[in-house]
């Protein structure tokens, strides 16, 4: 092969590989992203059984209950809606009632939300960003008062 043919072969191989990668990315983006919901969203646009979502909000005061087999039940609220979450496992150290939380999981056929992940996802105000943005929009939570400079 001369120089030109070799270069062409390399370019063809490269373009082919990139095309495969682009197809994979498009396929994966259409299948495997999870949307973020707050409890009140679920009334407007219900989520189908088995669809993986992220659910965020505040852990309702006094809602944490422990069941057998290290199962935990707690309620996630955003002021206008609530969802009861079931989770089997150890909760993060900074999981508290009244603080923000983000969970990942699915609804089962009976409308119960089974979380497989509870994230300690927060900034220095102990509030996850998505939750903080929405709570501020809805006027439920103002955030820590701005520090004077």
């Amino acid at each position: 092969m001369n120089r030109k043919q070799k270069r062409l072969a390399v370019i063809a191989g490269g373009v082919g590989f990139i095309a495969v990668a682009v197809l994979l990315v498009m396929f994966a983006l259409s299948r495997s992203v999870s949307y973020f919901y707050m409890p009140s969203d679920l009334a407007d646009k219900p989520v189908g059984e088995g669809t993986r979502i992220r659910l965020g909000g505040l852990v309702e005061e006094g809602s944490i209950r422990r069941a057998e087999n290290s199962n935990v039940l707690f309620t996630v609220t955003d002021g206008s809606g609530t969802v009861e979450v079931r989770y089997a496992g150890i909760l993060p150290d900074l999981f508290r009632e009244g603080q923000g939380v983000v969970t990942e999981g699915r609804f089962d056929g009976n409308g119960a939300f089974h979380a497989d992940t509870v994230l300690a996802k927060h900034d220095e105000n102990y509030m996850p960003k998505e939750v903080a943005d929405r709570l501020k929009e809805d006027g439920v939570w103002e955030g820590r008062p701005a520090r004077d400079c």
Partner: protein
Amino acid sequence: MTVELGLFALVLALAVAAITFVVPAVGVRRNSPQLMTVAVSGTLTLFALVALSFGVLIRSHLVSDFSVRNVWENSHSMMPLVYKFSGVWGNHEGSMMLWLLILTLFSALVAAFSRNLPNDLRANVLSVQALIATAFLLFIILTSNPFMRVFPVPGEGQDLNPILQDFGLAIHPPLLYLGYVGFSVCFSFAVAALISGRIDAAWALWVRPWALLAWLFLTAGIAMGSYWAYYELGWGGWWFWDPVENASFMPWLAGTALLHSALVMEKREALKIWTVLLSILTFSLSLLGTFLVRSGVLTSVHAFATDPTRGIFILTILALFVGGSLALFAWRAPLLRAGGLFSPISREGALVFNNLILTVATGTVLTGTLYPLVLETLTGDKISVGPPFFNMTFGVLMIPLLLAVPFGPMLSWKRGT
């Protein structure tokens, strides 16, 4: 008074950085050895000033001087000494100071260990390093001054975020920064080569040790972070494809590709232009990572103090450096002569294959990391792109690489039979 000394050193460092950027560049243009040597003394002075400033910040934290806002917000007098120390970079301002300290440390190392370099290349490299330092010094002084005072002086600090009171904070960020700031040296060498329009195998010989050093630190930093996230509940386990994890992983992937292509260039004088481009891309991804982590535009499970207003400033730095270096590349790269020939099935061919896979894989990680940001800006939908996406794309792309890895080193240079 000591605290003001820290700020004073920082302002002085800005002046020195600006001089170290301008004077050697003019020196190269006028072919004046006197002006070019300013690069070395300027770089060493710059490092000394930044180190002094960083030392003052450490001292304020260690003695719990709550008249400094940064200490008051992130420390507590009863905290163990190790957390008082690591708490220096457990916040935005301190973290940027550490970034700058490591940048100037690398510049100083280049200045000290580059006596065998051609004078003009050395001057250009140090000049570009000084330009990066100037940008970040401006950023720190204008938006993230760690030496801000608070009055009346509070009696007690607000404490460091408890999740950061961990030995991981003492070693993970410094290692990570030594890694991705270390790639700035490769970037500066690439820009210097483009400015002079000359590049040969010796260039790769000088760049490869720096790339290897940065890569080693980055690998250790990611591994350490992974271990920390593994035992910290709620951080998603050892690898979660979280945006912040991806931010450090992308320079790692590009850096790995760079190590391999620099090898081809050093041994065979091939892939020159590609190696220069990879050097630019690797550090650009480091800058992108700094932007993603520091601006808070992406939501992450890891605890970071963020302030969106500062994001604009870093975004400007990012745009100037990435845009500027790529424009320079587009303009000057055609001047660099194409290198040696090799057959597709050879050591070089295998390394090209390796580079192709690694860069495409970097592209998929970049897409997955930025997609939620783009979608939220366009439609307002909040989504998360998690492990299923990356397993389906990155995971699949790595299969041919893993299959090829055992055979690559067995091939001979130039042609393998």
